[in-house]
């Protein structure tokens, strides 16, 4: 098809505006399948999920009759949902702060002309190359409360400090944040390191000449300049907190759902118990949580790129 069109275009150089218009049509035509696929598989599907959340579909057989807010009522009254909300807060606080603090600290250290930088960088980012399923599997073994890391702690002389890790009935979620941060803090380190490397040397030199010490340099120059990176890190780790699914799927939901998440709850309700309406309500809730996190970020990135 396209040889035909280019041949025609070449043979009619006089009609320049017209073939230009044709090429635009070809461009739109080429993009159309992707637009349709994304529109259907992302946006129509989301709207559909929203509709299922107000339908009567709560058994294997499809039932899309309107149910009003029945599923939402059930969701709001489900104690497991309350625990999951609390877990989301615990996870987000632990995970986001670890990723951002560790990521920033390591990037700042690596930026100091360190010997073996490539080695350290490679090691720090290596967990990101494996699946979250692998992280869950390895850490589940390391955090066995009767042994694992606790053996190391005991060997260091802290015999009475025996955390229950992911088996803790209240704070199990914090143990999960370690597994998440193990994978993602290296990613944040890479973001910060790229950000630090993009800061011109003159700026640093000027600040040093003005008498700024290391701490002042970071407080008044680097950290403010790295604000966009911090924004990115907050959005990515925040989105990761909302979508968290892999680790509870591997290590289980713990005592009293202490390590359960919205993502896993949605999965179990929908695909294990066939409560599609309730599952869809959880999924919609997750979408609604994500939008105010992601939207301002994308708008600000877009605005910057235009400038």
């Amino acid at each position, binding site marked *: 098809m396209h040889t035909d069109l280019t041949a025609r275009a070449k043979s009619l150089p006089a009609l320049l505006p017209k073939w230009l218009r044709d090429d635009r049509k070809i461009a739109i035509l080429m993009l159309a399948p992707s637009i349709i696929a994304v529109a259907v598989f992302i946006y129509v599907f989301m709207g559909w999920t929203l509709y299922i959340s107000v339908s009567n579909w709560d058994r294997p057989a499809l039932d899309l009759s309107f149910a009003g807010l029945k599923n939402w009522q059930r969701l709001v009254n489900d104690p497991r949902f309350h625990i999951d909300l609390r877990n989301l807060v615990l996870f987000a606080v632990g995970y986001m702060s670890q990723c951002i603090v560790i990521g920033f600290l390591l990037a700042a250290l690596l930026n100091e002309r360190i010997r073996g930088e490539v080695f350290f960088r490679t*090691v720090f980012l290596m967990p990101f190359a494996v*699946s979250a399923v692998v992280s869950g*599997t390895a850490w589940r073994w390391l955090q066995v409360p009767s042994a694992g890391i606790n053996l190391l702690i005991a060997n260091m002389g802290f015999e009475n400090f025996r955390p229950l890790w992911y088996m803790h009935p209240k704070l199990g979620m914090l143990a999960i944040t370690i597994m998440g941060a193990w994978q993602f803090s290296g990613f944040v380190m890479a*973001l910060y390191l790229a950000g630090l490397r993009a800061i011109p040397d003159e700026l640093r030199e000027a600040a040093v000449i003005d008498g700024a010490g290391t701490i002042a340099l970071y407080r008044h120059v680097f950290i403010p300049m790295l604000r966009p990176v911090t924004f990115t890190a907050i959005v990515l780790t925040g989105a990761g907190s909302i979508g968290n699914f892999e680790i509870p799927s591997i290590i289980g939901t713990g005592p009293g759902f202490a390590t359960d998440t919205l993502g896993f709850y949605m999965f179990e309700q929908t695909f294990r118990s066939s409560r599609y309406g309730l599952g869809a309500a959880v999924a919609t809730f997750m979408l609604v949580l994500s939008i105010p996190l*992601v939207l301002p970020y994308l708008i600000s990135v877009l605005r910057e790129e235009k400038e």
Partner: protein
Amino acid sequence: MSWHRLLAGSTKYAVLIAFAAFYLVPFYVMILTGLKPLEDISSFEIWNMPKSLDFGSFREAWNQMDSNFWNSVRITIPGAIVSTFLGSLNGYVFAKWGFRGSNWILFLFVFGMFLPGQGILIPLVWVLQFMGLYGKVNGLIMAYCIFGIPITSLLFYRYYASVPDELVDASKIDGCGFFGIYRRIILPLSGPTFAVVGVWQCTRIWNEYLMALVVLGNPARAPVTVAIKNFSSMGVIPWNLQMAAALIASVPTIAVYLLLGKLFMRGLLEGSLSG
């Protein structure tokens, strides 16, 4: 002054080494446990070296998951190739043939990418069932191709936007059309970006778990990530097999990461919109 500096210097290295240990310990323990036979596995001996090099657990894990490993290969390669080519074509349109509203479309592509996958799972299963692709490798490949479009289009768009418009305009004057410019100007410049996007997509698809579990839960057809999960939900937990399986599943992506780290890093920075 100099002892002060020495102290600061060694503190830096001490912190870096401590974190290197933190990142490496899970790998170390996986290898250690994977090298022990089942009868030597006890959580109290997690830190002990194996008595002898025993690859039995790896052999056993491989025998149980080799079909899953090849399933992952069969899913990852076409998924990565198709989504990368689609991304290149879309990125070219967005960067060089922008039309009214095309920026909005790109924005909606990227926005969808950041939203949780749970939001589309139920309709996805329904549609795949309707198409006869539910529980089939091809269904999962199709899903990965479609859900890969936003990230691949974005990565190529960002690269093509940096290609000077003058190059495109010049070849328009030479009589090249949409495809002529793509073939003669854009594609020859795209090699490195194809590598970055291809590596990124391969890693992401290989490691993906949620959609794989939902679409291909059947143990015989499942990819490796689901196979690891199946090892861990056996009655008595065979830690040695689990660790061996997790390591085997990680070999391809770790190899890609170690060999092509630069490409991996670029995908990471560009894809998070901060490159």
